[in-house]
């Protein structure tokens, strides 16, 4: 890894101007310690063997690279592959990171972990590794998200985790993260904070990216085996952006591969009800790092909106902010409606229910593919499965009515 981009962040945790550690002094020693522990353990062959063991035998890696033949045929253009992160244990890519950070907690002698969660996928993945490694676990979740994702709340509780509602602010992922950080400030000496995305103060964006890069590493290997070459385009949805960063990172040294992140455009960029930090935000500090942020003139954070709780976040990982500014990756908006259409389309053409988050990435492939030739290879990171969203979709459909289906599939 000699490429300049791939050696970020620098020693201050900066990706270009983005990132850093804007947190209360109480946390600074813990962050320095975490960075030192991480750098030591990540070079430790024993730690790596243990992590690989769990990824393989517990989570089911490598996840398949699936050629979505019927979807590709229907769209009549580029060939679309799906990286099946939804087939991981617990149903999303989140476990790649929680297994890694859970082992960090164990190896640094912590008995207790905390986590924030939006859609509940990271909360479930954290509660799962807590059960696996015999750790206590508390998950902070916005009250609004607990309502939207009741099933995941129940799963976390079954796994033995305590779920604490975040009742401040917009009662979504942003506020759950605030509460988790506040809790960590108080319990920093005996608690490991498992951040679920490539956000937060340094070294978290780096750690989460490194644990998620297995997505992109496998994808490259699988493409070389299947097609004898790399894909032309990789697409992933971006809230905080951990599945996207995991997919993109190994491709950074392959400039021929176009990288596209899909931001949640909610009810439309013109409505103000969206979560498109790059399209509509400007650089600011949220949760300890400088990044694109939805905010008003005076720097008050403005509420985000997305149909998917996992993308409902006013910021974005600082490395994405840097990839955007440097032009290496493109970030495009996808609305609630477009994501829902993609959900139905993928479900009916391929028999795969994507998470509403992942449906934002599928939607972009559906938009692009017809304009491209059959030689063009697209890989979509199917970051999670949609079972958790079935209730929400049912209630939107008005109890069994057919939903919108403009693609006619």
């Amino acid at each position, binding site marked *: 890894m000699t490429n300049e981009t791939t050696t970020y962040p620098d020693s201050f945790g900066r990706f270009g101007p983005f990132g850093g*550690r804007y947190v209360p*002094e109480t*946390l*600074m020693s813990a962050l320095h310690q975490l960075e030192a522990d991480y750098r030591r353990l990540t070079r430790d062959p024993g730690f790596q063997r243990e992590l690989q063991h769990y990824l393989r035998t517990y989570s089911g890696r490598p996840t398949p690279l699936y050629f979505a033949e019927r979807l590709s045929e229907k769209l009549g253009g580029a060939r679309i592959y799906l990286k099946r992160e939804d087939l991981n244990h617990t149903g999303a890519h989140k476990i790649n990171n929680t297994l890694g950070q859970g082992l960090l907690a164990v190896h640094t002698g912590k008995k207790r972990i905390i986590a924030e969660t939006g859609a509940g996928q990271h909360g479930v993945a954290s509660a799962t590794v807590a059960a696996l490694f015999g750790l206590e676990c508390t998950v902070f979740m916005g009250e609004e998200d607990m309502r939207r994702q009741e099933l995941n709340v129940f799963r976390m509780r079954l796994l033995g985790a305590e779920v604490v509602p975040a009742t*401040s*602010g917009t009662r979504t992922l942003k506020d759950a993260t605030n509460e988790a950080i*506040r809790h960590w400030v108080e319990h920093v000496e005996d608690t490991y904070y498992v951040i679920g995305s490539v956000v937060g103060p340094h070294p978290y964006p780096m750690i989460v990216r490194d644990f998620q890069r297995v997505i992109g590493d496998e994808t490259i290997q699988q493409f070389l085996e299947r097609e004898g070459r790399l894909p032309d385009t990789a697409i992933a949805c971006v809230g905080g952006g951990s599945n996207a960063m995991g997919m993109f990172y190994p491709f950074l040294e392959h400039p021929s591969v176009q990288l596209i992140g899909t931001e949640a455009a909610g009810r439309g960029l013109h409505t103000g009800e969206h979560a498109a930090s790059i399209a509509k935000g400007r650089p600011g500090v949220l949760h300890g790092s400088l990044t694109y942020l939805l905010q008003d003139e005076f720097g*008050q954070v403005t509420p985000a909106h997305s149909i998917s709780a996992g993308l409902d976040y006013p910021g974005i990982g600082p490395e994405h902010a840097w990839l955007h500014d440097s032009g290496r990756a493109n970030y495009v908006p996808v609305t609630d409606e477009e994501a829902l259409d993609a959900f139905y389309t993928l479900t009916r053409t391929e028999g795969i229910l994507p998470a509403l988050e992942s449906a934002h990435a599928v939607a972009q492939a559906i938009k692009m593919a017809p304009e491209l030739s059959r030689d063009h290879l697209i890989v979509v990171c199917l970051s999670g499965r949609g079972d958790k969203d079935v209730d929400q979709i049912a209630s939107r459909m008005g109890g069994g009515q057919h939903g919108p289906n403009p693609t006619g599939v």
Partner: protein
Amino acid sequence: MDRIRRAFERRHGRAALIPFLNAGDPSFEASLSLFRNVLRAGADIIEIGTPYSDPLADGPVIQNSALRSLQAGFQLPHSFAIARALRQEGDHAQVLFTYVNPLLQYTPERFFRDAADAGVDGVIVPDLPLEESGAVREVADAHGIALIPLMAPTSGEARIQAIAESARGFIYCVSSLGVTGERAQMSNRVQSLVATARRYSPLPVAVGFGVSTAAQAREIAGYADGVIVGSAFIRRIEQCLVNAPMELSTLSQCVYDFAQELAVAMQQATRPETMEIRNGEGNQR
């Protein structure tokens, strides 16, 4: 910056009372009046809080206060307006408290220029640790404003030394782990934190986070140069608002009474003679 030094010096070795209130809570006019009342009751330095949507270092009491202020229409320039109005009335010391994002959005250059124009003496930024503070401190220095650093019980000796060496105005020691809010008991670790800070800086050392009673303030006044009290004031404001919404005279009275109670208690603190001399020396700087 000079006014901060003089505020501590005027105490002649006794600890300074530093009340924190959020600007604009419950309204711009009411909060201006509350600041006047704590000054009248004997506050030595006032800390003017800038309400923020995502106050990471604050507990529920100050969070709710920020929310009330924002809902009443608070915007950052209101903090400067309050400082300017109070400055016209006296030469007390006053510092602004703000999270880093509003400061960055306003731009440090404009922020410190307007703060200096408004008669602000120092600025406290709870989410701007040493590693991130260099550029901001440079601008603050250029405008003669002290960037007051925080130290925590988790700060190791090397960090304490580094923070102390770049400190301006005074040093703010966080009494315990956690966010702002009243605590029944103060951690005994803060006393050793204060002692360590003194080894590396001649500046006054104040203690805040969690101070809820006059007895606690008196105890801290026994070893620190300043006592910062925030949530305990704001909880009293909250109670008044429940009992008599927007009755300004009641609000003012309860804030005045509590400030006076704290000031009297701190006056009774016993401090070792050596500390007094050392403190006097430090303030020569």
